[in-house]
C-alpha cells in the first residue's frame, strides 16, 4: 500500500484545456462583447429623442407632401383648409413621436433584458461556485474527521492494551502473593511454589507497556 501522490490527483489535459479555453473566451467576451452590450443600452437611451425627431420629421414631410402639393384657388378660399392641415399634421406627428418612442423603448427593454440575462448567468454561476465551495469544505472536514477517527481508534487500542497489561500485572502479583502464602512454612521460610515471572515493584510505564511481566 503506497502513500497517495499529489500527481495522481492532478488535472488532466482535458481539464486544463477546458479551463484555459473558458478563461480565454471569457476574456474575449469581456473585452469585445461587453462594451458592445453597454454601447447598445447607452445608445438606446441617448438616442430616444433623436429617434422621435426622426420619425416626426418623416411624418411632417409626408403630411406636407400630401396636403400642400396642389395649392389651388378653391383650397385657398376654403374656410377649414388651415384647420384641416393643422389637425392632420398634428395627428401624423403624434404617430411619428409614438413610433420613435416605441422603437427607443423596445431597444431599452431589450438591452436591459440581455443585461439581466447576463446577471442571471452570474447568479447561476455563483450558486454553482457556492455548491463547489460547500463540497470542498465538507470534504476537508470529512478528511479531518477520518484522521481524527483513526487517531482515536489507535489511542483506544493502545489504552485498552495498557489496561490489559496493568490488569495482568496485578493478577500476576496477586497469584504470586497467594503462592508465597501457600508455600511458606511455620518458620516463615518459602519452600518453592509456581510463580509467574515478573519484575517486582515495576514502574507504571513498565507495567502498562507489558514489560513488568516475563
Amino acid at each position: 500500500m503506497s502513500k497517495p501522490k499529489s500527481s495522481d490527483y492532478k488535472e488532466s489535459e482535458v481539464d486544463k484545456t477546458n479551463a484555459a479555453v473558458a478563461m480565454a473566451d471569457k476574456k474575449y467576451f469581456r473585452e469585445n462583447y461587453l462594451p458592445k452590450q453597454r454601447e447598445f443600452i447607452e445608445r438606446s437611451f441617448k438616442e430616444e429623442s433623436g429617434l422621435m425627431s426622426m420619425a416626426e420629421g418623416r411624418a411632417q414631410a409626408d403630411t406636407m407632401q400630401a396636403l400642400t402639393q396642389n395649392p389651388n384657388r378653391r383650397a385657398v378660399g376654403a374656410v377649414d383648409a388651415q384647420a384641416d392641415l393643422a389637425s392632420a399634421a398634428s395627428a401624423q406627428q403624434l404617430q411619428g413621436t409614438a413610433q420613435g418612442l416605441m422603437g427607443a423603448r423596445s431597444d431599452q427593454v431589450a438591452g436591459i433584458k440581455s443585461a439581466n440575462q447576463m446577471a442571471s448567468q452570474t447568479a447561476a454561476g455563483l450558486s454553482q461556485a457556492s455548491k463547489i465551495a460547500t463540497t470542498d469544505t465538507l470534504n476537508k472536514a470529512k478528511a479531518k474527521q477520518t484522521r481524527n477517527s483513526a487517531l482515536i481508534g489507535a489511542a483506544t487500542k493502545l489504552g485498552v492494551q495498557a489496561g490489559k497489561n496493568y490488569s495482568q500485572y496485578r493478577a500476576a502479583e496477586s497469584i504470586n502473593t497467594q503462592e508465597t502464602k501457600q508455600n511458606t512454612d511455620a518458620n516463615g521460610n518459602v519452600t518453592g511454589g509456581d510463580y509467574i515471572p515478573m519484575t517486582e515493584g515495576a514502574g507504571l510505564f513498565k507495567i502498562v507497556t507489558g514489560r513488568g511481566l516475563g
Partner: protein
Amino acid sequence: MSLSNMFKSTYDSMRSEQDYAGGLQNVQNPDKAFAGMLRQDYNDYIANFRQYEDKLLGMTDDTTLIDRSRENAEKQAEIAAGVQSRNLERYGGGGLSGAQLQEQQRSAQRGNQLSLAGTVNNARVQQREMNQALLQELIGIGQGVNARSLEGLGTAAQGAVARRGAYKQAKANYSSQMTNMGASILAAFLI
C-alpha cells in the same frame, strides 16, 4: 470521389495549422478563478447596467409623448397658418371678402384648439398603452430577478444546512468515539 473522401478533403482545407488552444495561459486554480470571474461579472453588471435599469424602472409614468404632442400640435397650427397666409398671397387674397377672411381665421382658431385637444387626448391614450407595456416587460424582468435571487439564497441555505449538519455529526462522532475510548480503556484496567 467518395462521400467520406469529400468530407475529409473539406475538413483538411478548413483545418487550422496553428494550435491556438495550446498557446493559451494555464488556469492555476480554476475554482478561485471562477469565483473571481463571477465577482467581476457582478461588478461589471452594476457598473455598466444598473444605472440604465434604474432609469427604465423610472419610466413607467413617462409623459414624453403627451408633452411632445402638445408642443407639436401648437407648432403645426403655426405651420398651417404660414401655409395659408402664403397661399393667400400667391392667389391675391383668393378673392375672399374681409368677412370671409375673418370667418376663415375664426375657423382656423377653432380647428387648432380642437386639434390640440384631440392630439393630446390621443397621446394620453398611447402614452398609457406604452407605459403599461413597459410595466409588463419590467414585471417579467423582475420575475427573473426574483427567481435568481431565490435560487441563489436556496443554494446558500442548502450549503449552510449541509455544513451545520456535517459539523454536528462530526461533533457527535467525536464525542461518541471519545466516550467509547474512555469506556474501553477503563474496562481493560478493571478486568
